[in-house]
């Protein structure tokens, strides 16, 4: 629920409740005042009767009147208690109307009479209705105006908030774009903006520090790796090794070259993210892929993998270094996760490059195959190959997508 909706809802309910309560009180007050007035008019009438009796010593003649009826009934002395009451007023041939009456008594000579004066309240009630109607109308109008202005004003007031929000949605740590400040004089929003900007700066700085750390750490590692490597190369020159020793040396070599590749991969990732490798050359993908397939021929043969390739023409402008890494990673990946006697199908069109390979007959989770150091427990890779491939594609504006169509795992690069 939006803030303004919530606000309007609360506002509306409160206004309606208050309006209802006010309406009831208002109605009661008006009707009390008007009944009072009616009673006064009845009293005046009574007084007129008394005056007449006092002067003439007989009851006045009763004229038929539209809004008033006076009746005299003889009664036992002192049997009538003076009181006002609500009653029904019967006009000739008309519907019964509500009325107000007064019971009183008068002594004419030695005869005792009960006086019954009834007046129609219909005019009073009409008045109440009109007054009440107008009041309700005004209140409703007020409410409507309130809701509309609230909506307009709230919408405008919250504008800076929404612009900050959309900036936040676009926020990306790798992006160097500054957040624009919204046009507002509202302190709260200015404060929010300031905090959001400061936070974004902090996050970016932390991220940059982290990247710098990765880069420095990898750089620092290169020298010791280089020393180990060169010492191993020197050591094997001394000759006369037993079979056991040479097995140990082979294991050392493999471990060092893996360490070195892992390190190179980390450095490469940092460089791609820092956009340090953005040189562009005109590249013939067809030629690059054919070269690579020739280069890897032994590896395909070793695993007895059949490679079927339909390579169309496609030329791109990109960094040669990155494209070579991308192609290498994807094809090596297709070999590494393949089975003996498996298949790799490579096809290149002007729209995309697809590399299909046989392998384990289970689809991989496309959510996490591109995350760092995610790899099958049986994989000998660094767990960075696909991450790097994805990063390269993103940096070039391509899309790298994984899908599974039995029995093929398919990686597609959409140009």
């Amino acid at each position, binding site marked *: 629920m939006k803030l303004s909706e919530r606000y309007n809802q609360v506002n509306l309910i409160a206004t309606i409740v208050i309006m209802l309560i006010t309406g009831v009180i208002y109605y009661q007050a008006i009707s009390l005042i008007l009944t009072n007035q009616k009673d006064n008019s009845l009293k005046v009438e009574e007084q007129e009767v008394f005056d007449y009796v006092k002067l003439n010593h007989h009851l006045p003649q009763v004229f038929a009147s539209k809004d008033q009826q006076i009746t005299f009934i003889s009664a036992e002395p002192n049997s009538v208690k003076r009181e006002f009451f609500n009653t029904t007023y019967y006009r000739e041939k008309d519907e019964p109307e509500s009325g107000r009456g007064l019971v009183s008594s008068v002594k004419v000579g030695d005869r005792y009479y009960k006086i019954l004066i009834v007046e129609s309240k219909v005019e009073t009630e009409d008045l109440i209705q009109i007054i009440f109607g107008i009041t309700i109308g005004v209140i409703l109008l007020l409410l409507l105006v309130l809701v509309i202005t609230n909506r307009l004003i709230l919408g405008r007031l919250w504008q800076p908030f929404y612009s900050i929000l959309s900036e936040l949605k676009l926020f990306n740590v790798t992006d160097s774009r500054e957040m624009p400040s919204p046009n507002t004089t509202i302190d709260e929003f200015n404060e929010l903006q300031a905090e959001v900007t400061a936070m974004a700066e902090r996050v970016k700085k932390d991220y940059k520090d982290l990247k710098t750390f990765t880069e420095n750490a990898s750089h620092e590692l290169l020298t010791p790796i280089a020393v180990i490597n060169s010492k191993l*190369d020197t050591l*094997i020159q001394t000759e006369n090794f037993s079979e056991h020793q040479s097995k140990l040396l082979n294991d050392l070599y493999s471990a060092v*070259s893996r360490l070195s590749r892992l390190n190179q991969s980390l450095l490469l990732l940092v460089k791609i993210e820092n956009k340090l490798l953005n040189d562009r050359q005109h590249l013939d993908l067809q030629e690059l892929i054919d070269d690579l397939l020739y280069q890897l021929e032994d590896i395909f043969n070793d695993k007895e993998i059949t490679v079927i390739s339909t390579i169309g023409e496609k030329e791109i402008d990109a960094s040669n270094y990155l494209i070579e890494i991308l192609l290498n990673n994807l094809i090596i990946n297709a070999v590494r996760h393949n089975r003996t006697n498996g298949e790799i199908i490579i096809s290149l069109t002007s729209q995309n490059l697809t590399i299909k390979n046989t392998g384990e007959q289970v689809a991989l989770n496309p959510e996490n195959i591109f995350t760092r150091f995610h790899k099958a427990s049986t994989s000998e890779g660094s767990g960075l190959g696909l991450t790097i491939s994805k990063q390269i594609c993103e940096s070039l504006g391509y899309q790298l997508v994984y899908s599974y169509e039995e029995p093929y795992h398919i990686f597609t690069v959409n140009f």
Partner: protein
Amino acid sequence: MKILIIEDEEGLRESIEEYFTEAGNICETAASYAAALAKVELYRYDCILLDITLPGGNGIDILKKLKANNYTDGVLIISAKNSLDDRLQGLDLGADDYLVKPFHLSELKARVSAIIRRKMFNGSNVLNFNELSIDLMAKTVAVNGTPVKFTRKEFALLIYFISNKGKVISKNAIAEHLWGDGIDLANNFDFIYSHIKNIRKKIMEAGGKDYIYAAYGMGYKFADQ
């Protein structure tokens, strides 16, 4: 061959020196910018192995000085910085090659030999080893004058072997030389063996000697024993 190794990391410097020191080679070393500068100003070398990050200065400045004086020493930059800018800057300034740490000594040797060959033969570029004669431009091999057909990889491997003759080259170094970094999927390098077998066979069928020896399952050695 006279070689100057400018490298501040002692372990690496010593290994390179040891690997390059053999009959007919003179190796000198410098561990700092000042020492390196003093040497290059006094003596001329066939090839200078130049580290970029040095105590007291930048290796690129040494390269600039060499070029400013029109010295023709071959220069191979060895750097931990695998940055394209550095590489391009180095090559633009006249370095002959650029090798990123970590590397195999055999790879370094092959690169240095290539540089020296280019300097010495001045374009003719035929490499001779006993009865073998290799034309580096035409990429052809002749044994006792008879042309023998080599594949691209066999050719590259033969040159790599000759550049490192008398040294044991590990299978890892061979694999990385032939296939680049993509080779980490192989825990056995059986397919190297088939190339070596082919080279041997082709040379011997043309009347040449068998120069390639297996070294304890770790690697191979090319030697005239």
